[in-house]
């Protein structure tokens, strides 16, 4: 990213503009993210317990179907147009768990469906999530390497 130097006039205005910028309600946002994120995790934990009982598998193995269910939920809520209204209040509480990932993929897929199945839905569904996947794979690789070398 090019970082052009600001002239004194630009700097002066930017200082004023920064001051005029209203701040988001950090405390309220943090609180609602804490509560809603907690509720999402509670639901996830309930699913893990449920699957582990029903499928008679250890909780560690029940985590995968539970995650898949949460993704499905996030995707469905996005498709029904509910997710963005919930996220307005929940913020990071919905964005950080896997539900946020589902929302970013499905909302992109929905947005570009008129541009065709291949170039629209399939190509553009990862416009937002692509970076997350790339960093996820990279991080997994690096930590996998460290784990293999030192364990």
């Amino acid at each position, binding site marked *: 990213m090019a970082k052009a130097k600001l002239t004194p006039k*630009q700097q002066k205005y*930017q200082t004023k*503009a920064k001051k005029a910028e209203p701040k988001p309600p950090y405390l309220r946002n943090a609180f609602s993210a804490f509560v809603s994120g907690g509720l999402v995790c509670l639901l996830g934990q309930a699913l893990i317990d449920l699957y582990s009982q029903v499928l008679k598998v250890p909780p560690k193995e029940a985590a995968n179907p539970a995650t898949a269910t949460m993704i499905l939920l996030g995707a469905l809520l996005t498709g029904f147009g509910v997710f*963005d209204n919930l996220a307005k209040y929940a913020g990071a509480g919905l*964005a950080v768990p896997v539900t*946020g990932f589902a*929302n970013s993929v499905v909302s992109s897929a929905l947005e570009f469906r008129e541009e065709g199945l291949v170039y629209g839905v399939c190509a553009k569904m990862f416009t937002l999530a692509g970076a997350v996947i790339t960093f996820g794979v990279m991080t997994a690789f690096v930590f996998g390497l460290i784990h293999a070398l030192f364990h």
Partner: protein
Amino acid sequence: MSKKTGKQTYQFGNPPKIISTGTVAGPFEGLGPLHEDFDEVLTDPRNNEATFEKAERSMLTKACQLALDHASYSTSEVDLFLAGDLLNQIISANFTAITLGIPFLGLYGACSTAALSLGLGAMLLDGGFAGTVLAATVSHNSTAERQYRYPTEYGGQRRPYQQWTVTGAGAALLGYHGEGPKITAVTFGKVVDLGSKDPLNMGAAMAPAAVDTILQHFADTGWDPKTFDLIVTGDLGKVGFDLCRQELSENGLDLGANFHDCGLLIYDLNKQDVHAGGSGCAASALVVYGHLYKKFQRQEINRLLLVGTGALHSTTSFQQGENIPCIAHAVRIEA
């Protein structure tokens, strides 16, 4: 005699009239305080079309037809169609021009398009190059959000200084046959860059452009701002409008209670969740061609200065770290 006054202003010897207007507002705009002033309010943001892009151009076509109908004009009686929108390669205006079949000058002034097309149209008319001109613009929340920001169903929290792209279309028929307020002067603005980079804070980016053009307009004409019943900026929103007022005042121009912003007039900021207010081409088009045009007709205002503001960046330019270049054009409208 030169029509140019001062550095950037043109005053018209034979000022053309806005003989009619047409406005189509989105459903959300129909819930706002100005809903009675729009010719049509959509019930469906897709307007029964397959895509939002098609809905956008259908609104523009409808607004143009309404303007023509109100003055009992047919498309063949109009010499030129001046229009623009926010979408890449101004597709809404281009496709509407096919339907209308009027010789077309496509304009890109981002959200300043209403003022830009009024000013240019008036110049063409005063210069004797056309007898009747149709000036129009459109914006749609769902198409603009997709192009500039995030998918509409993406669950992100909006910033308090973010603005809401107005869904709507407005058209104005300019000419000499008929009644209506006159366009008596226009000040074309310079592109101003005061270092803003945040595409979510358009108001702060555009405010300096509005300040520059307003100061230039009064310097060029020597008029007293108090002679205006109303001075409106296009779509600065709360943050940008406050900055604009503050900057003007620091430059020795104190605008009082007759100074407003279309982006703030179009929504009820307390009831409608639009954060800093409205933005987009339709903000000034709906307010001026709907609300204020009716005020002219009722003789509630006699002199208006519209300062259309536009941010001229693209998604490519800001992702490559460039500043947001901004512009403002001022149009003086008198009864």
